[in-house]
């Protein structure tokens, strides 16, 4: 990496600007140039649209749900992180790995299977005599189950960085275990806790699959319904409010990332893990029942039971292999395109940070993309495409959607931040002295790149690609809204479509295949994490 090269910064900035600005400008344009009502012929005012759509109530629901999920996710994930790094017991490794697996589960599959299993007529609902499982509480529990593993990873990484020496020093100065936790450990975890709360908050406020399945009226679901119903003006206003609701999170994330870097300890000595005693054991079992039970076991058993039911009744199954190939095609290509968008920003930001500078606007803008909910992003891209193609011959809009260009742009915008993070670390860990010593040996730039830089980058590159692949395999709103016209029938598309048609056996089979793909890639990433 040339230390003073400005090319990565310029290319990276242009790429990220494209990803951020196209959907946002498309959305703003749709709000400003709202189409007239087809019946009255009048353009509705913003006030009318806001009142008609009961936007404030939806916003309140979205924010409340996101806050409950954030708190629950941090508590469950934080506890499991503690169990992972501060305790030891027989089977510890497998239990803590199991606790991470629900992150492979798409929220809409968990929601659909939990609703089916726990409601009357379901395999658990009947046994326990439970009422219909819909609404805010069950939606919150489902979202906590799938986001808690992310909190476990983030808080766990911070726990790993805490040095035993500081806690031991505090104890030697007379601090009780509780005071050591509150005064020494917790302040060092604060930014990680804040960061995981933010991730859970973003996940919950962006999610639309789980809330739609569980009948929880929130902004994303109503936005999707408005787009599906071609209520463009209403969709634009809902999208605008959703964008405003997520904006404060950008500021918070910027502040938290700054804090996150400040308290790193070089080569910390790990704390010696302790055996798990009865009360913590009880809390761990309860946490695992929520995360693994709700987020992994119930969905897999339920999906299996749907398939078994279809087989026992000799129902015809749609050939799932078509969806598997479509999923692999979309996810492999999408991961490469996302990687390409993340490449130059990661290179440029790492170069800056190596010189002890802040990542600056480019890094902030890259993270901003992660806060754009999928439905909003798809709407913004569709609005921008409409705006551009109105000057082209008729059919150009449908043609553009059919190329899959918008789908790939949607995936890249949605996941560029997730791919950027490991890639930046990979660039940052490159040792410039290796390249310098190769230069002194008279090796050409291309050979240096191929034989020195690329092998060093390869592990980080692979992790980044797998993260992108996994995210695209599970993705729903962008796939539904931008992928439909491409003719691709991915597994997520199939699950949603078949579930809404009440063809459970097909939904179950597609769901099981999707979960297998996602679990496989998550396990691969986790095994790399253990070896790293």
């Amino acid at each position, binding site marked *: 990496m040339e230390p003073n090269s400005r090319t990565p910064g310029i290319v990276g900035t242009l790429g990220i600007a494209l990803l951020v600005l196209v959907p946002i400008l498309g959305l703003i344009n749709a709000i400003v140039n709202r189409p007239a009502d087809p019946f009255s012929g009048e353009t509705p005012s913003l006030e009318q649209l806001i009142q008609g759509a009961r936007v404030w109530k939806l916003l309140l629901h979205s924010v409340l749900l996101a806050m409950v999920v954030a708190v629950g996710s941090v508590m469950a994930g934080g506890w499991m992180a503690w169990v992972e790094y501060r305790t030891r017991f027989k089977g510890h490794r497998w239990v803590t790995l199991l606790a991470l697996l629900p992150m492979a589960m798409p929220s809409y599959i968990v929601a659909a299977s939990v609703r089916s299993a726990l409601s009357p007529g379901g395999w658990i609902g009947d046994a326990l005599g439970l009422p219909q499982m819909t609404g805010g509480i069950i939606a919150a529990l489902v979202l906590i189950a799938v986001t808690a593993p992310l909190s476990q990873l983030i808080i766990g990484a911070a726990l790993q960085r805490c040095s035993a020496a500081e806690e031991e020093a505090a104890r030697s100065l007379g601090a009780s275990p509780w005071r050591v936790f509150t*005064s020494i450990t917790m302040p060092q975890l604060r930014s990680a806790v804040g960061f995981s709360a933010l991730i859970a908050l973003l996940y919950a406020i962006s999610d639309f699959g789980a809330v739609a399945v569980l009948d929880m009226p929130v902004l994303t679901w109503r936005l999707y319904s408005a787009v599906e119903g071609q209520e463009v003006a209403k969709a634009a206003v809902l999208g605008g409010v959703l964008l405003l609701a997520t904006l404060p999170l950008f500021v918070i994330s910027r502040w938290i990332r700054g804090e996150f870097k400040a308290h790193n300890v070089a080569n910390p000595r790990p704390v010696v893990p302790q055996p798990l005693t009865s009360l913590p054991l009880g809390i761990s079992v309860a946490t695992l029942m929520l995360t693994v039970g709700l987020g992994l076991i119930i969905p897999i058993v339920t999906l299996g039971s749907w398939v078994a039911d279809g087989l026992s009744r000799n129902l015809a199954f749609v050939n799932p292999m078509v969806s598997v190939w479509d999923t692999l095609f979309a996810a492999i290509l999408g991961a490469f395109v996302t990687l390409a968008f993340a490449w130059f920003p990661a290179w440029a930001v790492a170069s800056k940070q190596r010189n002890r500078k802040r990542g600056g606007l480019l890094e902030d803008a890259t993270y901003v993309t992660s806060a754009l909910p999928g439905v909003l992003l798809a709407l913004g891209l569709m609005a921008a495409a409409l705006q551009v193609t109105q000057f082209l011959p008729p059919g150009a809009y449908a043609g553009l959607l059919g190329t899959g260009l918008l789908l790939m742009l949607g995936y890249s915008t949605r996941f560029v931040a997730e791919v950027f993070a490991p890639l930046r670390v990979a660039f940052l860990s490159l040792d410039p002295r290796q390249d310098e010593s190769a230069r002194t040996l008279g090796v050409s730039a291309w050979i240096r790149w191929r034989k020195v830089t690329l092998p060093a980058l390869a592990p980080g590159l692979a992790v980044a690609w797998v993260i992108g692949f996994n995210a695209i395999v599970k993705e729903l709103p962008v796939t539904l809204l931008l992928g439909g016209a491409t003719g691709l029938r991915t597994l997520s598309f199939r699950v949603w479509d078949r579930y809404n048609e009440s063809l459970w056996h097909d939904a179950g089979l597609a769901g099981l295949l999707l979960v297998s793909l996602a679990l496989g890639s998550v396990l691969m990433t986790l095994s790399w994490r253990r070896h790293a």
Partner: protein
Amino acid sequence: MPEVPLQITGLGHQYGASTVLENVDLTIGNGEFVSLLGPSGCGKTTLLRSIAGLLTPTRGEIKLSGRSVCSDGQNHVETERRGVGLVFQEYALFPHMTVTDNVSFGLPTMDSQRVAEVLDCVGMSDFGERYPSELSGGQQQRVALARSLAPRPSLLLLDEPFANIDAILRDSLERELLRVVRQEGAAVLLVTHDQQSALSMSDRIMVLDEHSSGSSVLQEGTPAIIYQAPATESVATLTGECSIIDGVANGKSAETIVGVVPLATDKTGPVRIVVRPNSMRFKPTEGGDFQVADIRYTGATYRLYITGKNEQFETDLAGSEIPPTIGTKGVLEFCHPCWAI
């Protein structure tokens, strides 16, 4: 009469099947500075952590100021109630707290006067509002020392506190540490593998070494005794550079391959003789049995590496003198009596 700050009897510890400490006895008196010297991995830190209560030793008893805090594999008193100060090799300052907050952490209530007193004592009065990341290694170590001294512990444990500090700064910090602990009146147990630190700072040194059945104490005594009269070859090599040669003693001298060597004590029969660099000098002589194999200039002295008669020796020459060239032949003359084991 006040109880001694530390009394250890028959201490032993095992990690699984592997024994790291075996039957260690140690007593430290009020205001005494004791160093535990030994190679890496010999169990020094295990012993220190046992005293601090961060580890429960398998056997033996530890008494702090007359109170049994641990015996027969049971901890009776938790770390936080032992009242010992502990300074870590990696400083272990709390990164999210200012220097003042770090130093006041161990005080029951905020005592600005005491904080100011210890910060002044370590020369860090002007740094109270700084964060650890804004301090150099030496400054961080001073704050760590101030923090552990603030609660007025009767015993201060130092775990290789100067390992991450360069030689020049280490020397000044060592002198400062001695001044501060004497001023505070605390007894000190220093764990180190650096014989120079142990010899220059301690009232007493305990040498620990590893053997097949775990580490145990090889010798205990004043720095001069440990250096000049090592009980074993291990102690001799751990406490400084030396050559060890075979000889046959006959009273105050011994016949060796290099000639007659004066001995510090009366001995008879076969002996192993510890030859320190300062006990002999090299005298260039035509046709001598020894020759200069290498020379290293250290500023104050030249260190000459001498070979001959299948033995190797090191000896010093004042830096102001003109050194011989490599390959110069000569003889070895003993100017001080040597210690025979």
